Structures are given as C-alpha cells and as structure tokens.
C-alpha cells in the first residue's frame, strides 16, 4: 500500500516537474505582458497598455502583414504542390517512389539554420533581391513536406479501387481526381495545410536568413530583444503563442476525430 502511494506521488511529482519546465516560462511571459511596470522585478498592477501599444506600432503592424501574407500564400502553394506530389508518388512504382519519399523527408530533418543559410546563399548567388518574396519561396520549400506527409497516409488508407470505380462510372482521369480522390483525401489535405500555416507563422531562423528588407513577427521580436526587451514584445509573443496553440489544437482535434 505504502509503496503504491509513494510510486503514485513520485509519478505525479515527475509529471509536475516536466510540465513546470515547459510552461512556467510562458506563464511568466504572459503575466508580464499584463504588468504595468516596465521592470521585470515588480508587479505594479494590471494593464492592457502594452497590447494597445502593439497595435499602434507601425513597424509591428507591417511585420504582422508580412507574416500573414507569407503564411497564407506559402500554405496555398505548398498545399497544391504537396497534394499533387503525394498523389504522384503514391501512383509510382514502389522502388522509385521510396527514394522520392525519403528525399522529401530530408528538409524536415535538416536543421533550420542549414536550410536558412543554404537558401540565402542561393539567393545571393542568383542575385535575387531578398525580401518578402524570397521569404515566401523559402516558406513554400519547408512547408511542402508537411503537406506531403499529411496526405500520403490518407492515400495509403484509401481503397485502391476507388479511382478505378470512378473511371468505371464514366469519369475521365481528371474528373476522377477532383470528384473522388481529392474529396476522399481532403481530411489529410486540411491537416497538412493547417500544419504548414503554423510552421510558416512561427518561423524565425529561415526567414531571418532569406529576407533583408521585410521582417516577420518573429524577426521583430528577435531584433527588439537585442535592444533590450520592452513589455510590448511580451504582448506580441503572447498573441503569437495563443494563435499557434489554437492552430495546433485544431490540427490535433482533426486527427483525433479521424481516428475515432
């Protein structure tokens, strides 16, 4: 009896410790974003001033615009490329398809700094001026694998006769694609798009290396932090955290529903 109690307590303590390490810093940051004092040392009362200031800052609003533009466009393009790529690879003979699938995995495992530096080198080398558009290209590149790997399992689960059934009932190959295949794998496509949007929204490293003229929100936070952090940055980080948390919850909820 005593032993099981002790084991339970130990398990509980361990879990609490892990969660504390993960979430206390974020909780502190969120708390400070509502603190009247600029100082991190004392709590002088609740305020929403920092949030107000955030929305008055032209620089931050411009960065928000860049972030959203890049995220939306990158998501749209990578969802199309990733979905079509997955369908193509799925239809290929296994040998070649395996090589391609593994090659597509690589960008997901490559450290962001490597991806960032190499993309920067490419843009420098090809003399493309680095700004919003190069950032967009970079985001499409790292978003696409996420779509690919959300769609591939749906294709594998699909009844292999579905495409043939569509042809059998009178569809041309193209009609079979958009009337049957795409609706059938749409849960995977939506999950992939949500993931891509999340990745794009909070990317710092790759964006930092691939854009000079335009800054996204993560870059603003970084450059502000170097000058000495203002509580507006806590407010901005809090909003970004909440947005991404909401998106990830949406993704999880979707995969949870599908597995039911």
């Amino acid at each position, binding site marked *: 009896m005593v032993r099981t109690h002790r084991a339970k307590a130990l398990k509980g303590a361990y879990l609490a410790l892990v969660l504390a390490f993960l979430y206390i810093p974020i909780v502190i940051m969120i708390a400070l974003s509502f603190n009247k004092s600029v100082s991190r040392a004392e709590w002088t009362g609740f305020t929403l001033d920092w949030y107000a200031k955030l929305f008055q800052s032209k620089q931050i609003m411009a960065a928000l615009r860049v972030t959203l533009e890049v995220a939306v466009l990158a998501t749209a393009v990578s969802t199309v490329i990733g979905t079509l790529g997955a369908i193509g690879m799925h239809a290929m003979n296994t040998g070649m398809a395996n090589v391609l699938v593994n090659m597509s995995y690589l960008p997901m495992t490559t450290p962001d700094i490597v991806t960032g530096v190499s993309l920067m080198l490419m843009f420098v080398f090809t003399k493309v001026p680095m700004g919003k558009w190069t950032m967009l290209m970079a985001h499409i590149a790292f978003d696409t694998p996420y779509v690919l790997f959300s769609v591939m399992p749906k294709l594998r689960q699909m009844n292999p006769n579905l495409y043939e059934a569509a042809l059998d009932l*009178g569809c041309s190959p193209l009609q079979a694609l958009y009337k049957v295949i795409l609706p059938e794998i749409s849960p995977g496509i939506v999950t992939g798009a949500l993931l891509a949007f999340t990745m794009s929204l909070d990317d710092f490293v790759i964006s930092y290396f691939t854009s000079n003229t335009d800054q996204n929100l993560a870059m603003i936070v970084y450059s502000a932090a170097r000058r000495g952090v203002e509580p507006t940055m806590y407010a901005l980080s809090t909003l970004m955290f909440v947005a991404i948390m909401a998106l990830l919850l949406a993704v999880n909820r979707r995969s949870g529903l599908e597995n039911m």
Partner: protein
Amino acid sequence: MVQDMRLIELKGVCKSFGDTEVLHDVDLYIRKCEFITLLGPSGCGKTTLLRIIGGFEMPTSGEVLFEGKDMTGIPPHKRRINTVFQKYALFNHLNVFDNIAFGLNLKTPEQLGVKTKAEKKAEIERRVSRMLKLVKMEGYEKRSTNALSGGQQQRIAIARALVNEPEVLLLDEPLGALDLKLRKEMQLELKAMQQQLGITFIYVTHDQEEALTMSDTIAVMNGGRVQQIGDPKRIYDEPKNAFVADFIGESNIISGEMLEDDLVRFSDTEFQCVDEGFEKNEPVDVVIRPEDIMIVGEDVGMLTGTVQSVIFKGVHYEMIVISGQFKWKVQSTTMQPVGSRVGMTIVPYNIHIMHRTDMANVPYNIYVPEGASREEA
C-alpha cells in the same frame, strides 16, 4: 449461328507482369445475356482477365472484341461495361443516393433521354429510386455509406453499377466478405436480377458452389489458362482433366492405365468403363466422385478396404477407406464403423478417364501408412 451471339470475344490474350506470365493465350467468348463465371484458385489469372475486359489492364498481346469491334485500347470510362469491385469501393464522401447517381450525373440530359437540367434531375431521381427498390434498399437515400453493413454496402455497389444500364456487368468476388447465409441469399438475388434485367454478367469467384448455383456458363481457370468451359452440369459431370475434377466438387483421383477401349486398370484391378479413343496402355488419370462409390459387402466388392475414418456431414457420412495403396473418399448414407472391412463397387459410367496433364499439383489419393515419412513415400 453461334458467331452472331458473341458479345465479347477474347482472342489469344496474354498478360505478363514483368517476368511473370499471368494469362497464357486465353481464347474465350461471352454470349449476350449470359451469366458466365470465371472460376479458379487465387492466382489463376481470373481477376486479371476481368480487369482486361473492364479496361483496367492492357493485354500484353491478343485482342478483346466487343460486338466484333476491337476495344483493346479503349479506356474504362468509354466502355459500356460497369464493375462491382471486391471491396465495394463506395465513395465515402457521398451519401447512398449520390453514390448511385454518380454515373448518371456525369451524363448530359440528352444521354438520359431528356432535354433540360431540371428534367435530368427528376430522371436521375426516378432511376435511382428504381435501383434502390431492385436491391431492396428503399429509404436509405440519405444514409452515409459508412453507416451501412457489408451486405448493404454490396447492394449499393451493385445498384451504382446497374443504374448506368451497362451491356455487361463485371463482378469481382462481390460476395467474398459476407457471411455464409447472406452470401447464399445474395447469390439467388443476383441471379434473379440478371435474368430480370437481361444484362450479361461476368462473375469472378474461387467458390465452386457459388459458380454452380448462379452460372449459365463456367470457365474453370488455372495457371493462367482456361482449363474447361461449359455449363455447370457438364463441367461437374464431365470434367476435362484432373484439375477441373478436383476443383469442382470432391473427387478421388487415381493414376491408372488404359488397357483398351472401355477397359481401365487401377489399384491392381481391371474395371469396365465407357471411355474410348485412348492409346493402348496409355497412363491416365481416373476420377471418381465420392458419391459414386457404393459400399457393399467385403465378399462382393470390386475393391476391398478398411474404414480409416468416418465424419458425419449432415446428409451423409464421409468415410476414408484404405484399399491397397490408395485412400478413397466415399460418401454414403449408412455408416460403417472405423476399422471394419468393406467392399466397394463403381459402375462403368461413373468412372471418368482423363488424359494425363503435366500439372505437378494433381492431388493423387496416395495412402501413406502411419510411421512412414513423406520422403519414403
């Protein structure tokens, strides 16, 4: 005369996947309004043959004719053929109504015999509800296909294919996933539908009983070749070779020797038979159905043996009788106790003589005494 009745004709169809030859020089014709079954064990090429007729595979060589015209290169969506797939392949994002209406929605109003879009909609509704009635699924229009049982899904898959009024319906083991009772019901229903609609059915199965129940014609396949084609009774009564005999129903297959016309020797005994035209002393396969062996007294039997096992099968007892070097499967309504000595009699027209085939897998009824290992036998 027969020529003009041929709806589909396959001429010298071969199919290989890489180095593996799946179909070898298949010649086959299918008559209008016929229920034909391609029957054979898994891997015999029956599904590949069906897929070639449906247009999902191209033959490596040979021709497929539809009403005398070559249709080898025509894609599936341009053939007047519809398919019921093995695992139903219903569209899960559509409800029952939209699944059945799928093919009709792709057609122009003119193709459905009406003028306007509104008329097309009404026409589709009319045809779909007629199909739902045919497959006994009225009232299920708005249901999701995920909420249906296997048998119901199968009915929807059949309705979805038939609503397009095809000339030919291909069915790839459509009842494979259903339980025995449901399968038997659906067999009769499918046969009734086929007769009612007057559509040619090409049916693929490995279940010989299913084939015998439903078919007008059975094509028995093995090793990528059609072994025998004919009506069920003929295939059952007069199998062309030992493989067909073994696959259709149960058989005793014994190796023997044709001494002269109407006289064969097997199990060290000479038997009168009704087969002629073999060479003198030609080695042959002798096929005898278990129900054609009569158990008689030991002193009057043509063969004598010892009962090794008895199984009660409902209508009859199935006994294994060891006689010399062979084990005989015998079906009889009277039971003989295990270990008893019995005589066996076979009338001449129940002895079927077949030319030896080079098939290595002919399951001869060799008796291996206990204790003897396989290598020694």
